[in-house]
């Protein structure tokens, strides 16, 4: 093994080395990195609403090979780089520095190697110099960082820890996908909504994203009810209103709206009517649509029933037939606020109706854009993937931003699939990420 370390590996964890550019001093050195013409490239920037930099960078490596080794080595490298998923270039500058991984892109040309740079310096012992351009993701990945375990209630209520903040500082130069293992215990859900958002370091993250417990609101037919004020004033910006709605009639549907009233019967802000059609007598988090809150409003700590005070109202504008409902919770979910570092991500996972019994672990693998299930079938967490069809995944995977306060919220049971009451359980969450690095400097 020679330094710097430059290897093509097939994965981040438990990697197999597919190709070694710098195998190091052996009895007869066959291949080694040249110090010249090395360029780890600059990323192409492509801003996104979610604050993610897309694009690619091109890494140039020059290496030398003894003539006998050159042919087999070069053809092997060529084969690897034209694979659909070529793997990662692992780079470690010195023995005491941290390794980095560049996620490689597939080479589109048949032979990515530049033959114009091939030369022989010695007629007897020919040494060939090769230069290869490797196209990779814009940012290099650092070694896996595990965050301390968190406990997250399943109901979105502030007193159950929502939103939960990731207190460890985030390493890196760019937002990184956040991977999560939810230990759901024996609580199974057909659908979950996982939100992540990042705010400026000094922004308030008081629990305005939920409401204190309020008495269950029951509505019949076209009715609405005041549900009171928020514990804190949200920052100005765009939010989505979600409410946990339970239909207590056996059938029927209704058009729901949520509004901010001035206390004199005027709706200052209201959502467009949303059709709510539960399949059964069951509850679910329902997305009632977007609201935009202007700056300069304060509507906190108001008695919920005092006239002349601003308060939130939720209700049914029309229902058919006359349907009885209960509202068990109400939240404002940020989408883009004045203190947002980047747009909120929302990940909605909807499972098929079958779910294994016993303790299950739901894994959100943001690095690979996958959601899966571990355990189940009466077993404890044995690490085996059970045969559960993957869920339908809508939205974006969660991210953590360096230099920001990173928040998470998990709403369980976000579609009407079964006959469940309001979810009150909580689960532990193991979270980890691979930091995104711009430079390969000594780490």
């Amino acid at each position, binding site marked *: 093994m020679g330094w710097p370390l430059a290897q093509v590996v097939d994965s981040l964890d438990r990697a197999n080395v597919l190709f070694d550019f710098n195998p190091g001093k052996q009895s007869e050195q066959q291949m080694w990195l040249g110090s010249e013409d090395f360029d780890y490239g600059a990323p192409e920037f*492509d*801003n*996104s*609403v*979610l604050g993610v930099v*897309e694009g690619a960078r091109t890494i140039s490596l020059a290496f030398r090979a003894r003539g006998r080794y050159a042919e087999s080595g070069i053809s092997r490298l060529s084969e690897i780089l034209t*694979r*659909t*998923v070529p793997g990662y270039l692992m780079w470690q500058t010195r023995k005491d520095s941290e390794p980095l991984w560049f996620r490689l*892109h*597939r080479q*589109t040309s048949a032979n990515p190697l530049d033959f114009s740079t091939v030369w022989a310096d010695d007629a007897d012992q020919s040494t060939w110099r090769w230069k290869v351009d490797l196209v990779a993701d814009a940012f290099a990945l650092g070694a896996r960082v595990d965050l301390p375990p968190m406990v997250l209630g399943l109901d979105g209520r502030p007193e159950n820890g929502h939103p939960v903040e990731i207190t460890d500082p985030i390493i890196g130069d760019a937002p990184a996908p956040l991977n999560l293992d939810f230990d759901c215990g024996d609580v199974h859900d057909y659908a979950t*909504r996982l939100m992540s958002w990042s705010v400026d370091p000094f922004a308030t993250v008081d629990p305005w994203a939920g409401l204190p417990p309020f008495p269950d609101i029951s509505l019949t037919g076209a009715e609405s009810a005041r549900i009171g004020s928020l514990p804190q004033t949200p920052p100005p910006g*765009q939010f*989505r209103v979600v409410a946990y709605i339970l239909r207590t009639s056996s059938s029927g*549907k209704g058009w729901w709206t949520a509004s901010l009233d001035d206390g004199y019967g005027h709706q200052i*802000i*209201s*959502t*467009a009517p949303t*059709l709510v*059609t539960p*399949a059964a007598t069951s509850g679910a988090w329902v*997305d009632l*649509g*977007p*609201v*935009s809150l*202007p700056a300069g409003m304060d509507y906190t700590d108001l008695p919920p029933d005092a006239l002349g005070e601003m308060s939130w109202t939720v209700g049914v504008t029309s229902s058919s037939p006359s349907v009885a409902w209960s509202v068990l919770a109400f939240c404002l979910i940020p*989408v*883009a606020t004045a203190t947002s570092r980047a*747009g*909120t*991500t*929302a*990940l*909605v996972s*909807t499972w098929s109706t079958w779910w294994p019994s016993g303790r299950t672990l739901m894994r959100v693998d943001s690095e690979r*854009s*996958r*959601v899966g299930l571990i355990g189940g079938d009466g077993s404890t967490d044995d690490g085996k993937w059970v045969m559960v*069809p*993957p*869920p*339908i*995944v*809508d*939205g*974006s*995977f969660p991210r953590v931003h360096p230099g920001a306060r990173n928040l998470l919220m998990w709403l369980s049971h976000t*579609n009407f699939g079964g006959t469940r009451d309001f979810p009150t359980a909580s689960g532990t969450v193991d979270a980890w990420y691979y930091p995104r690095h711009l430079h390969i400097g000594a780490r």
Partner: protein
Amino acid sequence: MRAPVGVSVQDVAGDWHRLPDVGGVQFSTVAPGGCSEATIPLSTQVLLPELQQGCRVRLTDGTTGQKLWTGRLSSPVRQVRGALASGEPSFEGQAGYLGDRTIRYTPLVTRQDAWWLGSTMKPIVGGAQAQSGQLPTNDHVTALMLTLPNGWLRAGDCSLASFHGFYDGDGFASHSSSSIRALIATHQEGAKSANKSKFQVFLWHGSTGGTVSWSSSAKSPAARVTHLFDSTVFDDVTIGYQYNGALVDTSADKTVLDGDEIWSGWWNLQVFRHLRDITGNPIPGWNPIGRGGLLPHEIVTDLVGSMWLDIAINPDRSVIDTTSSAIITSYDFADRASMADILADLNSLVPTHFWWVGPCEDDGSMALLWQPWSQGRTLLMPPGAVTYDEAASDGDLANQLTFAYTDSGGETAYETLFADRWTYPDIARLSWDAYAQVEAPPLDLTSLSSYAAAAQVAQAALAEYATSPKSATATVSVPVVAKGSGAMLQPWALTAGCMAHIPETGETLRVTKVDVDVDTATATLTLGTPRRTTQEIVSTMSRHRKKAN
């Protein structure tokens, strides 16, 4: 700035996969319609699950998880080692699902040739004649004519014509029963000589010969007659005359047939199928006789009730507005037509509303909406975003239109329709003279099945001539304020089927198409509807109103 739009696909095994974010995604919604086409470059760089034509695809908003567009892979794909081998796949939106299934949709049949003369149920006997012929009193009318010669009185029962079944039962095991609910016709009787006649008209309803006595008063001059059927089973009916029930009203004149030849004519026949509710059951107590036609929402509801099982419409989520009171006097798609064809045709008749297929649910079902434009949400366009298309000049306006049709006598007849300036305010600009008449080019609609069918097409064409259309394009790359709620809607979350308020002109136009470009987070809105050409109207609407061959 890239919009946070995620792509998920369903593989051949039915499992969903969220694809890594790919560039170059574009998608569109149209109103009427819903999700239309999309461009999703499935790069050869990306390892894909196993796909095939028809696999479902959905685009979702990464900030909210909302579904923005759903559809399916509409071209064949070839994969090598997990990646797309070559070529750009094409995608079809949710609205395209309505084109999958075709039926013969005939809820209100007005074609005279849908009646079979001289049914075998009550054979013609004794020299009586059942034929399609001119009415003795008016040679412009061709009626189903029963002619009874002298002395026929003692020959027996006799049928004039039968209507056998509605077409749309075929292929629908779940909703195969389609019964006749009502019959409306114009009826006249007479005799060659001055003798008064009074027939006993009978309807034989159903294959078991259940009979319904109809009014038997003398019908001269011509009169509209109606009958509402109670049975929800029978889909055939025979008009005839019954010997035992006293072919001639003996109390009035016992000898009327002695030495005379009498006739009975039927035309303008409307046969109503018993319409269904949204889940496919006949609507209890439904009675179209007072209106003499169908209401638009009745047709939409009946369509959903007829087809929801076959094309995965969810009746629970479907919302059908009932406010339009337009009366549709003929609705008869004797050729096979898809739900999309039928709804497009209905929209030509009822331009105040539009149909919409929302993004599909997780179980694959979709909601069908029939909504008035006026109830849609209004977007406030950012200043400078809107560019008007070149306006159609007022020189194209007209307030009257003459069309040729085939009358019930098989002859070519002409009628002129007039547009009034209260219904169509644009034509007030035609002239200072309120009575000025500006003619549109005449229409030849003689190939259509009936006067009612031709008149519907002509009226839609006149409406087009009598309005000065406005259309515009808006390019939006910042959040747009929704009037009323004040919510800021992101460009990629905008859909057609709402209204757009243009600050520069104060006008509010319909948003008929929205194209979203994900790479630039920009929406291009098509506002208003460009004027359709007469050819477009006639080809859309007359396709299924043609005479049967």
